[in-house]
């Protein structure tokens, strides 16, 4: 036997697999688009593009002829161009496809392709390219088409800019820092004579120095510390006290007292401490921003909604994760699946349930060409949609976190922190007052410096930071392991769970290696009908039936309806077809043992049934054993044919209940909660939405569908379900890290305050300690969470691969 080596042909331009390779100069390309780009680059001697990175291109989306013709209209031109004259124009395009060094190189060498382009400059961080060109030789539309034809289609957004404007805020902080530093240095310089001892005869000089100090301190007071003052003022207006109030009070007190001292001739004031204080506070703030940025747990980049959708690629439908969708992708959405991004309807009509977005559960009818918004749920027949905007993870998460879906119990720690933070600030103000009085009577010269130290060093920010950073990092860890939680409060609730309830179909079992047998007489044509009807539903059993009856053929189905817990029905060629449970289809015979049965009825006449035996998920046996008695019940909408098998899997004390409809599942959970248990429910979100909502934590387990019910608290990828016990352990660990963080921040405050009150702390040292404390808390929580996660899950990954 000859063994043949399978070599995959990868496209030279984009690196994608070539089904039907097109060859040019001994290089393979996956499509005409990639080949064309190569030809353009090669003829303009720009092949260095391929030297800088391997397969740097992206597969071209088809660009229509008139895609950018709107750019030539005068109104729009004005909006898009940053500079315009008859001989010189400059345009700034946002190009989301910029992702590597080759992209920068190619876009900055555009002038080689079209001589009307003078120069082009890329800003990699913002993914923009600024092109200077001669408008009398090339118009904006051709420019856009040129870069689109190279694979870098510009994304033109005329109303608001969706690119992050992170540079601006940083600049103002740096300017404030510069001014504070400048003035601090000079004030120190002019205070030197004071330190070294001016004689009485040089009074005049002393006054001049003090005046200079005041002049230098004014910009610091007015501009550099403006953030603190305005924040404190705003909270005063709302009759509240926030974290910045003690700092603002300290700064104002120090400045005014110093000015008074100088004008009344009492002394030289404390302007050196004042300017130094502001300088170090700003450094601390800048440093904090940098630390937070690098530790940021931006879910858009690390954790994705594990929802999948069918996307058309070529002539096939492939299941892809929603975050990979781009504009102009064609997707197919089935019954009860969520629309992941803003789309235009390609099919004739669709019924969309916008309850997730607007709260209104009455389905809205959409016609061909209508815009369908992300978050809508499709009811009825599957439809074809064309994506208009990329999926916005943050938008979907925002909808999910809507008030309407919140469970009544609020976060225990959040309330604790809010109350603590408020009381804390009052305590600090009170403490500083007492200290002031004490020192006034003991040694009046020290008063102002000491109260400022007290006001500055006490930092409730550590309190406020512990919980968000710990939970945020834990969310990121979970996300990396395919458990996507709605928000950080869920972790707290997960730590308290002491009872777990499983749904059977799709959660404990799945359809990866099913055994399907058809009993009954069906014609070839009827089998095609049934397969087609089953493809409209996303129920695990329907998917299996569809795969079994996988025969091509176009069939018209009308009046499609899916009744959760019962079955699906539709009308094909004027015959009413029903697929579902015995009661739904009207089967009155004996129950069939040892498998899930889906009955088939055509025109209310039972024609046969499918015997489907699904297998258990891999490793779930081990998980159930580890959970032991915590796993309280298995609720299944199926019949009890699997009882024997399930009993061997589950602990003898676990209740196995079958033939449960959605209401019974909900009632069971409620009863369990009444006995004082905190319940976690794992289901597939199809017919246990109510139960998921009722439970303390409801997790929806998905495989590769877009089923999403907002009532759940988290989405878990099916093949990661065996990590459930680790996830619970991690949530408990997270809450203990938060508690330790509180303890640490209290200890820090107690020690620092005792030093300040006894007069051993200068304001400058206090200003340095403050950001140090918050950074150390942040580092502590981040390092703890990551270390614990590594211990629990890190080694697991190594074994799994």
């Amino acid at each position, binding site marked *: 036997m000859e063994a043949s080596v399978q070599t995959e042909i990868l496209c030279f331009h984009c690196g994608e697999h070539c089904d039907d390779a097109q060859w040019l100069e001994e290089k393979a390309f996956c499509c005409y688009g990639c080949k064309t780009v190569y030809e353009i680059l090669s003829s303009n*001697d720009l092949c*260095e593009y391929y030297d800088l990175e391997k397969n740097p291109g992206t597969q071209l989306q088809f660009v229509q002829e008139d895609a950018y013709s709107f750019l030539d209209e005068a109104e729009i031109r004005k909006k898009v161009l940053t500079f315009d004259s008859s001989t010189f124009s400059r345009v700034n395009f946002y190009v989301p496809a910029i992702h590597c*060094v080759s992209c*920068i*190189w190619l876009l*900055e060498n555009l002038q080689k392709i079209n001589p009307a382009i003078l120069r082009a*400059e*890329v*800003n*990699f*961080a*913002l993914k923009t390219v600024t092109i200077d060109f001669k408008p009398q030789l090339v118009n904006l539309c051709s420019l856009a088409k040129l870069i689109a034809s190279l694979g870098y289609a510009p994304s033109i957004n005329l109303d608001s800019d969706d690119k992050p404007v992170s*540079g601006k805020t940083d*600049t103002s902080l*740096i*300017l404030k820092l*510069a*001014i504070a530093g*400048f003035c601090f240095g*000079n004030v120190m310089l*002019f205070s030197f004579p004071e330190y070294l001892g001016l004689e009485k005869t*040089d009074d005049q*000089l002393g006054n*001049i120095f003090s005046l*200079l100090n005041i002049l230098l301190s004014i910009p610091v007071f007015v501009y550099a510390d403006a953030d603190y003052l305005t924040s404190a003022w705003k909270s005063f207006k709302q009759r509240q006290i926030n974290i910045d109030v003690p700092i603002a009070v300290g700064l104002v007190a120090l400045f005014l007292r110093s000015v008074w001292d100088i004008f009344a001739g009492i002394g030289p004031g404390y302007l050196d401490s004042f300017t130094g204080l502001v300088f170090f506070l700003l450094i601390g703030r800048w440093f904090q921003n940098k630390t937070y940025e690098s530790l940021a747990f931006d879910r858009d980049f690390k954790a994705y909604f594990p929802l999948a959708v069918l996307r058309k690629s070529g002539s096939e439908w492939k299941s892809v994760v929603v975050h990979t969708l781009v504009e102009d992708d064609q997707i197919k959405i089935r019954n009860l699946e969520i629309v992941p991004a803003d789309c235009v309807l390609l099919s004739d009509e669709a019924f969309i349930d916008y309850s997730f977005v607007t709260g209104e559960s009455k389905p809205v009818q959409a016609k061909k060409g209508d815009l369908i918004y992300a978050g809508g749920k499709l009811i009825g027949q599957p439809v074809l949609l064309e994506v208009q905007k990329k999926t916005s993870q943050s938008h979907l998460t925002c909808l999910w976190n809507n008030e309407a879906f919140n469970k009544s119990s609020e976060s225990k720690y959040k309330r604790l922190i809010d109350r603590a933070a408020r009381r804390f600030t009052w305590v600090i103000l009170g403490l500083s007052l007492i200290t002031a009085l004490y020192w006034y009577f003991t040694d009046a010269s020290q008063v102002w410096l000491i109260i400022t130290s007290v006001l500055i060093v006490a930092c409730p920010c550590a309190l406020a930071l512990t919980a968000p950073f710990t939970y945020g990092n834990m969310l990121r860890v979970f996300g990396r392991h395919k458990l996507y939680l709605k928000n950080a409060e869920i972790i707290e609730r997960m730590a308290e769970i002491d009872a777990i309830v499983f749904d059977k179909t799709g959660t404990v079992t799945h359809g990866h290696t099913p055994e399907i047998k058809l009993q009954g007489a069906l014609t070839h044509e009827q089998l095609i009908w049934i397969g087609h009807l089953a493809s409209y539903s996303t129920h695990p059993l329907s998917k299996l039936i569809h795969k079994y009856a996988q025969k091509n053929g176009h069939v018209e189905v009308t009046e499609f309806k899916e009744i959760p817990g019962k079955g699906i029905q539709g009308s094909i060629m004027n015959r009413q077809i029903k697929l579902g449970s015995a009661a739904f289809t009207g089967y009155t015979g004996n129950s069939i043992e040892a498998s899930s049965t889906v009955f088939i009825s055509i025109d209310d006449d039972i024609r046969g049934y499918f015997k489907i035996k699904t297998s258990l998920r891999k490793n779930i046996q081990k998980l159930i054993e580890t959970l032991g008695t915590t796993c309280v019940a298995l609720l299944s909408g199926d019949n009890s044919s699997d009882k024997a098998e399930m009993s061997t899997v589950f602990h003898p004390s676990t209740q196995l209940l079958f033939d449960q409809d959605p209401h019974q599942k909900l009632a069971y959970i409620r009863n369990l909660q009444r006995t004082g248990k905190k319940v976690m429910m794992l289901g597939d979100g199809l017919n246990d939405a109510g139960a998921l909502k009722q439970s303390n934590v409801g997790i929806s387990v998905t495989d590769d569908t877009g089923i999403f019910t907002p009532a759940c608290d988290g989405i878990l990828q099916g093949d990661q379900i065996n990590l459930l016990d680790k996830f619970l352990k991690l949530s408990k660990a997270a809450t203990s890290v938060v508690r330790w963080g509180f303890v640490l921040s209290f200890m820090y405050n107690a020690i620092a305050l005792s030093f300040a009150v006894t007069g051993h702390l200068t304001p400058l040292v206090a200003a340095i300690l403050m950001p140090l404390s918050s950074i150390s808390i942040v580092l502590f929580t981040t390092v703890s969470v990551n270390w614990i996660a590594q211990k629990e899950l890190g080694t697991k990954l190594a074994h799994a691969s």
Partner: protein
Amino acid sequence: MTIIILLILISLSIALIFLGIFYWSMRSGQYDDTYTPSVRMLFEDKIKKKENRDDSQKREIAK
């Protein structure tokens, strides 16, 4: 001793000029993008390639 005051004023003005220059450089936006210039300077100049081509052409003629 009054000369000190004059010196102070002069040095302060010079320092203020530098502060102004710093302010202007921040505003000019040269610090907005710190990544791309680091990549850009590593690109090779086209002139080198042209020289190679000329060299290879010369070699062909010589043959």
